[in-house]
């Protein structure tokens, strides 16, 4: 079954996609004293999952829907798999996501992580959809097209984004504070049911119009990313 292995590879933290350099705002949250222990980490992850995590996953699912069913695209040698309609839909999604991301630092990071992810996946798995995919779009939209390319469904594509949203900070936590690495992963496992439910919800939200995707604001995450940019001593890029 092609999609199961593809799902695991895409969600694997060892996939060289650039995400390992980011703590999802956790480093600054620890520096500010907002997170001090494993309970704080668990709360942090839960909050992230249900706000920006779910929103970004919904945008990934929306991009997945926008790209359309291109499973036969590999067979096509020529160009034109990303039509002008698809490109316009992706641009609209990007604009809607940017309007929901008030922090300039997070907008820059989102575009940079999207660039890195697209670049590495083009090398890992060359595909016309990836070749023609517009540059500079936010990372969740890139996950959307990769989900299509690897034959994942919308909910699994969303699940990868949600997985990244919580495992990124959880593994960073071990390098940022005195915390038992087993407990850090325990915090993620505790969220398993929430992650699954959020993936289904994101797939549902991604089916509708881009304007209807809820902007699930997380002000402390915005503040953390802005504070972090001004911080000279830092381990993670965000």
């Amino acid at each position: 079954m092609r999609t199961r292995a593809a799902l695991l590879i895409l969600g694997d933290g060892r996939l060289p996609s650039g995400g390992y350099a980011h703590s999802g705002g956790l480093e600054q949250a620890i520096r500010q004293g907002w997170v001090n222990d494993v309970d704080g980490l668990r709360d942090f992850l839960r909050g992230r999952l249900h706000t920006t995590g779910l929103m970004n996953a919904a945008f990934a699912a929306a991009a997945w829907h926008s790209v359309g069913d291109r499973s036969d695209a590999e067979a096509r040698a020529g160009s034109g798999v990303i039509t002008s309609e698809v490109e316009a839909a992706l641009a609209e999604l990007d604009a809607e996501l940017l309007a929901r991301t008030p922090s300039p630092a997070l907008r820059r990071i989102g575009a940079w992580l999207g660039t890195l992810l697209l670049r590495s996946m083009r090398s890992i798995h060359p595909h016309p959809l990836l070749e023609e995919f517009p540059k500079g779009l936010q990372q969740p939209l890139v996950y959307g097209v990769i989900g299509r390319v690897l034959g994942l469904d919308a909910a699994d594509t969303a699940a990868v984004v949600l997985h990244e949203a919580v495992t990124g900070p959880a593994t960073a936590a071990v390098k940022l504070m005195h915390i038992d690495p087993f407990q850090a992963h325990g915090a993620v496992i505790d969220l398993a049911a929430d992650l699954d439910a959020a993936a289904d919800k994101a797939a549902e939200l991604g089916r509708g119009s881009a304007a209807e995707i809820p902007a699930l604001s997380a002000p402390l995450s915005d503040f953390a990313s802005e504070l972090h940019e001004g911080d000279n001593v830092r381990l993670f890029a965000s």
Partner: protein
Amino acid sequence: MFDSSPHNDETAPLAHRTTGSQTAGFASSDGSASGMTCRASVATELDGTGRTGAPRSRVSGLRRQAPLVPRPTGASGFEPYVDGDPDIARVALTTAAAGPLGGDHYVFDVHVGAGSTLLIREVSATLVLPGAHGAPSLMHCRVTVEAGGTLIWVPEPVIAAQACDHTHQVDIDLAEDARLFYREELVLGRHGEDPGNLSSRLNVRRGGRPLSIQRFDLGPASIGFDSPAVAGGALGVGSVVIVEPEGGLPQATAISDPRSALLPIDETCVQINALGDDALALRKRLDASLAELGEPWGRQTGWSAVPR
């Protein structure tokens, strides 16, 4: 999610109790909800020139339906952007009864005509109460600002009393060169009270394109809202959105303390977000951010008997 289509009640003089069918998808599913449906509106237009020779705005339409009662008013205190200008239209929104209560559905339409300027303030904070059945309530503000128009809206806080389930939705459609100052302050519970549920949705679009879209889902039903990734233990969540088509807004983030930030959206738009341990702390942070932004949007003000 909610039915926001225009209701055919333009001529209805009084608010009426609704049945489930009129608020389909909105009233509580047990069918026991009896909410108030209420529509009010304000419209402005240009009306010749004023005493200073500058264009004068006037209120060209005013629709009141208790408990939402907009009233023309005069200048008082510091006013962002339009401070003391005698030629603009001013309206104070008052609520003539308690509410919104559970099951209530308020619609407030604002239309700022081409080139005109409207300042909206409120007489008091909005206390959202659960009503007898704790049914969902909705306040939906639908705002259009036409070419060259300016809307300055400085509402008082929305306070989510225990057990309420309130959605506060503000949709603002701006023309390409429209100007906006919008402030919102959300407070979780009255003093010492456990908060109710409050979902505040602000959609600012310009020329049909998304500009600043925020949604704060607060209260016990919103998992993780009190987490260190979202609002922490803050009981006050607020924001200001400023759109100035002539530019001149800061293009770099300004963080005066770790729980508030002025964030540039683009050359003509900034957004301020702040949190506070209570309503007062939130207000002080927003005021401080605006004072730092400076004239004409904010001013360092001392104590005053006139609020703001």
